[in-house]
């Protein structure tokens, strides 16, 4: 079980030759269920385009996608099942809220996939609990009078409430303050664990990507140009910089220390605790 993309291509503008260079080309990848996959790439590299294929919002013009037993290709019909299976959180998902109350908005998805009254209520309650939104406090409020961060949580709950197996997060924290960002990500990956989801995580923040993904794909001009674990990908600092991408904070610090001749070890992504240790040891060497 898992997700297999077999040579999929999608061009936005087929008629105009000059513009048809936009899209994704010949992408193949294979992901096991339950994994957290990070997707990085420069602006316009095709990350969102690729992600929209995972729940058939865009159908591949060539190639096919296999998600467990479902097959998506350019002739796919009956897309509701796949939309239920793959939940999709867009950039700025709060723009899609439209109901009078938070409850009704979250219930929209479950209703669409044909759940019964009581099932809907249970699904909404569970999704709100997952996102740490108090049911009694929020259910009758208008989504429009909430703060930005709360709106974002409601919008994500609308997707979670459909009980997907795969969750696509396309820059889920864009535009939030640093603390809300950190809290929301922690929450999302907690949900991934409790609900045993496969997660695709698109972000421009390399630290978040390093911290949360088990495997990373790097995109450039509609193609996958690099892949590997966080450790592998973020050790290729020159290549990443050539692609216009950054590196995690720890890699930057280690590089700096090396340039100044203080650090002689290998440059690789490590978490902040390990980084502190490295620096602590360097200080120790000096004091000797």
């Amino acid at each position, binding site marked *: 079980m898992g997700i297999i993309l077999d040579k999929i291509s999608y061009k936005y503008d087929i*008629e*105009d030759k000059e513009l048809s260079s936009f899209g994704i080309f010949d992408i193949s990848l294979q992901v096991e269920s339950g994994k957290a996959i990070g997707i990085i790439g420069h602006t316009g590299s095709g990350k969102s385009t690729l992600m929209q294929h995972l729940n058939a919002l865009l159908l591949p013009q060539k190639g096919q996608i296999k998600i467990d037993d479902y097959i998506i290709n350019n002739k796919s019909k009956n897309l509701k099942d796949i939309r*239920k299976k793959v939940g999709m959180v*867009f950039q700025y*998902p709060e*723009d*899609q809220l439209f109901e009078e109350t938070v409850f009704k908005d979250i219930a929209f998805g479950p209703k669409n*996939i044909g759940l019964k009254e009581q099932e809907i209520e249970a699904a909404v309650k569970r999704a709100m609990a997952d996102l740490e939104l108090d049911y009694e406090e929020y259910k009758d409020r208008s989504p429009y009078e909430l703060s930005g961060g709360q709106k974002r949580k409601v919008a994500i709950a609308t997707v979670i409430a*459909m009980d997907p197996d795969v969750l696509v997060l396309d820059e889920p924290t864009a535009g939030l303050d640093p603390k809300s960002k950190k809290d929301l990500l922690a929450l999302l990956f907690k949900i991934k664990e409790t609900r045993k989801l496969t997660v695709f995580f698109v972000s421009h923040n390399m630290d978040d990507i390093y911290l949360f993904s088990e495997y990373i794909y790097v995109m450039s001009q509609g193609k996958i140009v690099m892949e590997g674990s966080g450790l592998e990908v973020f050790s290729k600092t020159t290549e990443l910089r050539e692609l216009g991408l950054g590196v995690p904070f720890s890699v930057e610090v280690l590089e700096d220390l090396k340039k100044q001749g203080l650090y002689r070890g290998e440059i690789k992504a490590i978490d902040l605790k390990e980084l502190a240790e490295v620096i602590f040891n360097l200080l120790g060497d000096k004091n000797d």
Partner: protein
Amino acid sequence: MIKDITIGQYIYKDSLVHRLDPRTKIIVSMLFMIGIFFIKDYYEYIYVLALTAISIYLSKIPVAKILKGLKPILPLIVLTIIMNAFFTSGEVIFQFLFFKLTIEGLALAAFMSTRIIFLIIFTSLLTLTTSPINLTHGIEGLLNPLKKLKVPAHEIAMMMSIALRFIPTLIDETDKIMKAQKARGADFESGNIIKKTKSLIPVLIPLFISAFTRADELAMAMEARGYRGDEGRTRFREQRLQLNDYLILLFFLVLTIFVGIRSVVF
């Protein structure tokens, strides 16, 4: 899909047609519209076809792009064909109740639909090769003489340019919200017309809200930059007709007068 709408869509290319003064292009489009009504015989469309083909070639706009723009008006063409084919008197080929298909009707249907198709193709060249800003500058320029009659030329042009400017934005926004609601299991395709209309509510509400927010922000940004209407406003680029403009205007003017006189005299 919603993306197929080409009205108001500008495609940047470096071409002779793009470089023409917008006023020239607007006048030429109008002359074309007038001229095509003087055409009497089917074979004369060969000249129209040649003129249109040369214009498209010079504009460097892909033909497929232009043909795609015909899609939204397909219902109009079909309606024209039906109306003309069945409601023209003449030699009856086939009759059903009081609908009579006539030879004259068929000929007229072909004639009229060709006229509409050429009209749309040629005028869509105007919006495809002229950026919205230039288009409204052109309209303002042409309306300017009417300012003396208290016609609010500047305000009209500004309203149009804002509306045109936001068409692509609104289309993008609609596309994005529709996708988001589809991802939540919304179904815009199946069901009867009432169900289909109802299914648009989750798209329309967020769309209106964002449009109002945008309008508010735009008004604020304009005021913050000192916009206070037409008075004392100068242009970054003053419009001035070039040699090309004069030649093309002259050509179309002569052509229109010629077909006009010919259709009256003969």
